[in-house]
């Protein structure tokens, strides 16, 4: 395998099975240094297993990968020197205080005692945790815990950071804080590989996206490219009366083709090549007696991208990521 200095991650044909389950079934990735790269897919698609292989936690069954130019199997220690991982579970020690968690990692990474303490104070301050520094992490809120978790990955600034679903389970404000941190990280030169099942998250953060399903990369490109690959645009319609949705679906099906029902029970969307045909379709609706609350013509969402690529919506896949780590149960 040739090494491109401009690539932070270069993976070819990564495979990993757990028993009968092919968690990762031949994944290729190329992540440009200094970018945010999103690995997008539903639960169980193989995102976590992929990231765990790249972070040297799991050995691939087949295939190879270089992270910052180092082989993940044969030069695992060199990889560990330059990356850090923020796992799906907030991997901080609940029985210690926030400060103790960071000092612990500082010491393990080779900082002297005073330096580790100073670093902990600096990070806690920067991440808005100064007031909670001396409190046990088990008393932290979800957002605080996640920020501490990310801070723990930055005790020594990594050149590449793996983030596995960093905003799952967070409220919108905490989620925005995490997004700000990720943007700051990249602005300072760290490459970020981000696993997410939120299309919006990949869309707003990532420079490049790999869509992964059943352990394979099924599409790759910039968010814009992925959207264009689905179609030129998309008509979104919200109805006054959700009961009229079947009727609206029929009309739009006839006028424009396959309609997608949105999570909102009164909303539908359909790919649509141009504004003229969208206007005609909306007119058809009112002629059929369907009352429209609002309509808009826009770029397709990544939800629609996913539907177009896989034939099933991102949310409907079975939630069983074959990871050896059990889901966190509230203790």
């Amino acid at each position: 395998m040739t090494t491109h200095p401009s690539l932070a991650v270069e993976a070819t044909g990564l495979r990993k099975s757990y028993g009968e389950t092919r968690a990762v079934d031949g994944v290729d990735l190329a992540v440009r240094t200094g970018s945010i790269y999103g690995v997008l897919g539903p639960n169980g698609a193989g995102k976590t297993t992929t990231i765990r292989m790249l972070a040297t936690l799991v050995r691939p069954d087949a295939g190879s990968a270089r992270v910052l130019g180092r082989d993940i199997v044969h030069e695992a220690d060199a990889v560990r020197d330059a990356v850090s991982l923020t796992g799906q579970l907030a991997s901080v020690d609940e029985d210690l205080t926030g400060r103790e968690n960071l000092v612990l990692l500082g010491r393990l990474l080779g900082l002297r005692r005073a330096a580790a303490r100073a670093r902990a104070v600096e990070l806690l301050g920067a991440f808005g945790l100064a007031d909670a520094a001396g409190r046990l992490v088990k008393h932290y809120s979800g957002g605080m815990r996640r920020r501490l978790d990310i801070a723990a990955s930055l005790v020594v600034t990594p050149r590449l950071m793996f983030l596995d679903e960093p905003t799952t389970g967070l409220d919108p404000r905490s989620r925005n804080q995490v997004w700000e941190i990720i943007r700051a990280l990249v602005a300072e030169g760290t490459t970020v590989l981000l696993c997410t099942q939120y299309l919006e998250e990949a869309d707003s953060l990532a420079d490049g996206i790999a869509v992964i399903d059943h352990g394979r990369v099924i599409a790759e490109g910039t968010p814009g490219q992925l959207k264009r690959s689905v179609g030129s645009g998309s008509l979104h319609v919200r109805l006054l009366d959700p009961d009229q949705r079947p009727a609206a679906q029929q009309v739009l099906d006839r006028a424009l083709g396959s309609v997608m029902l949105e999570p909102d029970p009164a909303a539908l969307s359909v790919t649509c090549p141009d504004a003229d045909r969208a206007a005609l379709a909306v007119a058809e609706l009112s002629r059929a007696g369907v009352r429209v609350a609002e309509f808009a013509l826009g770029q397709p969402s990544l939800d629609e991208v996913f539907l177009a690529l896989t034939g099933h919506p991102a949310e409907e896949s079975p939630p069983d990521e074959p990871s050896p780590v059990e889901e966190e149960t509230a203790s």
Partner: protein
Amino acid sequence: MSATPASADASPADADAVRAAISSTPRPPRASAVSAALTFGWRGMLKVKHVPEQLLDVTVTPVMFLLLFTYLFGGAIAGSTGDYLDYILPGILVMTVLFTTVYSGVALNTDVTRGVVDRFRSLPIWRPAPLVGSLLGDSVRYLVAGTVIIVLGVALGYRPGAGVGGVVAALALVVVFAFGLSWIFTTLGLLMRSPNAVMNAGFMGIFPLTFLSNVFVDPTTLPAPLEAFVNANPISILATASRGLMEGDAHAGDIAVVLAVAVALTAVFAPVTTRLYRRS
């Protein structure tokens, strides 16, 4: 879980401060194996400080046993409670420390199920450091639990024949044995699915083995096959050696057997634990 969504959550992460914090770290040289292991030992100490209940849990049962057996059965078994206390105290010391070893497995399993192990495994440190360090930290816990029992025994009227030196030697021997034994529980901790399962399986093994030893009664009164089993039980040999050290008449042979068993347990189960840990 978020019992009190703290007010500190209101202070958002400040983007400039975050950038400053991120940009300010040159990578230090790697931590040495010893330093990494000691850091994990320190983590164990912090847990004793923050979760003292854990230590209390494993000390309360032996304290209860000590009081119950001494005052309820002591007279019947040994003629007087005072005589029985001399017999049972070193045994209870062994029991306390061995019970505490189960928690090494429970703690490791907790780390795995909470995802903390993932972070440790992604660090550039000596691979067995988390395991060795935790067991070092646990050894301090064994010392504390053992000391509690000895202090209680002295308060109840126990007077070791070999004085403080004998007690320290006995405690040291028990801790060394416990270090070896705890590798079994760390293996178990990596094989089982939940901390509770580790705890149940651990006590299911250690509890009968402790009773089928000479910790509570002199085995000469037992049926012959049982007596043979009890005499061969390493826990019996450990209890006998501890009694000997505390009274000043220990057999070198017993001590040698105890140390050999500890070394053998470590030799078998430390590598197994390390292998499992790498793959967890």
